[in-house]
């Protein structure tokens, strides 16, 4: 079968609209899911510091200390005993190796350091010395 030049030209044309639609849907999906991950964090006024420039390893447990001094894990208020239990679970998951458990503390910046000291002491008793202090990167500053 022999195509005319016009027919050949018609075959060469791509309709980009469905592809753009699909790409848009994918982009919207990924943007929204990443946004939800950000929103899952408890809003806390953390100390404004640039932070550590060193390469970070993944955090295994995030502990928030809100403006009233309450401890929160994944947005839920936890007592000291419950926190101990959660930390013990993380330790068990890591095969009892405290170095493999990476704790991030996100404190309210206006709180007295008493709350941080208490928590650090609690972590130290479990052998967890490699915790990190969460900071809010100031506008225009970067790590």
């Amino acid at each position, binding site marked *: 079968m022999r195509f005319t030049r*016009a027919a050949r*030209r*018609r075959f060469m*044309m*791509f*309709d*980009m*609209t469905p592809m*753009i*639609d699909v*790409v*848009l849907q994918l*982009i919207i999906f990924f*943007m929204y899911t990443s*946004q939800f991950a*950000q929103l899952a*964090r408890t809003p806390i006024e*953390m*100390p*404004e*510091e*640039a*932070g*550590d*420039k*060193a390469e*970070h390893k993944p955090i295994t447990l995030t502990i928030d200390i809100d403006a009233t001094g309450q401890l929160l894990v994944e947005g839920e208020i936890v007592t000291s005993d419950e926190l101990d239990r959660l930390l013990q679970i993380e330790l068990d998951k890591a095969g009892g*190796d*405290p*170095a493999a458990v990476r704790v*991030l503390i*996100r*404190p*309210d*910046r*206006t*709180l*007295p*350091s*008493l*709350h*941080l*000291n*208490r928590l*650090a*002491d609690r972590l*130290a008793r479990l*052998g967890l*010395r*490699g*915790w*990190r*202090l*969460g*900071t*809010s*990167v100031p506008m225009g500053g*970067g*790590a």
Partner: protein
Amino acid sequence: MRFARHDHADERDLLPMTSLIDVVFLLLIYFMVTASFTARENDLASALRADEQGTGRASDLLPQILSVELAGDAVVYRIGERALSDRASLVEMLSRLNKDMGVFVKASNVVPIEATATALQSCTDAGFVKVTYVPTS
């Protein structure tokens, strides 16, 4: 009526750009709106690398201790007998210390956590890799 061949060919070869422009426009709006709401977060290390590995070997070197205290309403950063009140002088003082020995940071219970974070950040800015936070009991 006979059209010139090149006119028809040009019309057929054009890609519909309208959808693409719509997408780009939506993305631009999205990033402009969200950029102002999402604050960037980072963190500061609180322990020696050696401690993280669990070696816990006692050092016979003289420890360098940075204490964060409250004098009246003002925060004071104390290294030995030197008392400093601002970040610039603290970083300058810390940068003169021996980096191999590391530094211990100790914060009084009454000091705001923001000042404690400033002390840890100053140690990092001064070039210390080994920073240990010592909780005050």
